[in-house]
């Protein structure tokens, strides 16, 4: 795997090193600049929140950081690999090996059960379905929904579906977990429980966790908070600034 981690590099570099990230979008004849030269590092062992108003560019930023959206300018190194210098196939394989995704709408496959959904990254890596499901079931056990492993997504509550999505993000033991509004579709108590769980299972010394959210109910769970306003980082600290 081209994106395999070099232990020496890991010791000296951040999990994600973003430099001069600029992203423009075309709207007819108009070019809209969404990100204005972002420089930041995301460290392993931390749960980093990217927060900001709608349209501030936070989703664009994490899309670029995890290798699913090309920056107009700038460089992104993930575990020392300059991901936008990889070929398309290498980048896809890099994501499969190193990144776990948790989406706002879960995006579970409706016709396969929870265990199979959680096992998708392993199956995509080429593991046989049986062993992949068994491994996923162990993770579901850790997430306290082992008894739901054989149920289809539409038989699960929102909180349970998000736990399956967390299992899917972690089952292949990625070094970077990217979450997009993980509590947006959940009520307050479910959201809190999911985040507690996520913190418990996703944060590890050799793993970075980056979360895009505007849910102020869970800000206290962050190790670090980046505030984005109009495509610029206006705050980088362990707590939200007073004026937010």
């Amino acid at each position: 795997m081209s994106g395999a981690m070099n232990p020496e590099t890991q010791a000296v570099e951040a999990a994600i090193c973003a430099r001069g990230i600029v992203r423009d979008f075309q709207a007819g004849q108009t070019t809209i600049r969404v990100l204005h030269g972002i420089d930041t590092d995301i460290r392993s062992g931390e749960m980093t929140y990217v927060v900001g108003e709608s349209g501030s560019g936070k989703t664009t930023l994490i899309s670029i950081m995890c290798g699913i959206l090309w920056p107009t300018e700038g460089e992104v190194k993930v575990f020392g690999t300059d991901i936008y210098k990889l070929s398309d196939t290498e980048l896809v394989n890099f994501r499969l090996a190193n990144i776990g995704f948790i989406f706002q709408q879960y995006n579970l496959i409706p016709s396969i059960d929870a265990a199979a959904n959680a096992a998708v990254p392993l199956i995509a890596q080429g593991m046989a379905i049986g062993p992949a499901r068994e491994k996923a079931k162990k993770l579901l056990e850790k997430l306290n929904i082992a008894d739901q492993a054989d149920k289809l997504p539409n038989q699960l509550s929102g909180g349970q579906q998000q736990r399956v999505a967390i299992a899917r993000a972690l089952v292949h033991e990625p070094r970077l977990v990217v979450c997009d509004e993980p509590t947006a579709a959940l009520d307050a108590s479910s959201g809190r429980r999911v985040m507690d769980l996520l913190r418990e299972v996703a944060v590890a010394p050799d793993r970075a966790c980056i979360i895009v959210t505007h849910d102020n109910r869970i800000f206290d769970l962050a190790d670090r908070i980046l505030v984005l306003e109009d495509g610029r980082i206006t705050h980088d600290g362990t707590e939200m600034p007073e004026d937010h």
Partner: protein
Amino acid sequence: MLWIAIRMLTGDSQKFYGLLFGIAFSTLLITQQLTIYLSLIDRGASGVYNAPEVEVWVMDPVSRTTDVSYAMPSTALDEVRSVPGVEWAVPHLRSAASVRTKDGDLEQVAIIGVDDATLIGLPENLLEGSKEVLQQPDTVIIDDGGLFNMFGPDADVIGERLELNDQRAVIRGVADSLASFTSTAVLYTKYSQALNYVPGTRNRLSFVLVGVSDGLSSDEVAARIEEQTGLKAETRDEFADAGITFIVENTGIPTNFGITVVLGFVVGVAIVGLTFSLFIRDNIRQFGALKAIGVTNAKIVGMVTAQAGMVGAIGYALGIVGTAIFLWSFSANPFFKGFFIPWQVPLVSLVAVMVILAITGWLALRSVLSTEPASVFR
């Protein structure tokens, strides 16, 4: 990933069955219509197939098929017999006649006069009676299709009297024969008897049926006959093809069946295309998520191909089985006698199904492949 692809498809039962229906319906329509078409035009050669011992058919140069012939003078028979390589040559008469049944119904029939001595020209097998009954006076043997059409499926017609062009005819046998293209009832009788039934004209010899001597080919003898007599001589295969070609060139059947086959294809594309597109649209976020997670476009193509392949295989099998059931269920009806599915027809249907799936799969894939993985974050 193929397992996931198949589960994605089968899990959406409405669309899965919709896709199966589309493919099965197209396959059924294309296979069934092509089968009927080929079996039907094959009947243009039924007159040739019903006289299996004949190797060369000799006729007036303007004659085209067993049913479109111009009578020759009776001297043609002796001319043909004098050609070296002709093992035997017998007269054969084919003509139309009107018949009135005992119940007073009027039917148009075909009269076939076979050689008095050898009975060459009769179908190989009889369902009722024996070939020798033709030696009895006023005897005719009716074909099984004609029996069905004129008297119904279970009628006992042995001994039935007919008024044939104002002359008496008695049915004493039923021939096991292939129906003609027009499904007209056929009455076989001796050549000498047929001359009585058919209104008199100077020339009434429709064909001279020929067997070739050992060691010679039909082509060779046919060429000799043409050279020496000036008549037209065709081998069994050539004359059978001529009968089929005549139907193809002189009827609207190819166009009509062709339109139905094309409609089957278009309906297949429409149903499968629409359903497949809906299926992909409903799952576009899941495909986007898979792409974000790290499933390559090649694997996505493999997934959609597996889905299309599965639908195609099952739908195609259902369509072929449906066609077979259709033919089997009508097999008792003489109209469908001799109908079969030539091996080329399922092959054509398979190609059509593959094209349908290739078109619709490609259209569906375009939206999946153009989906940005980043779209799942929006």
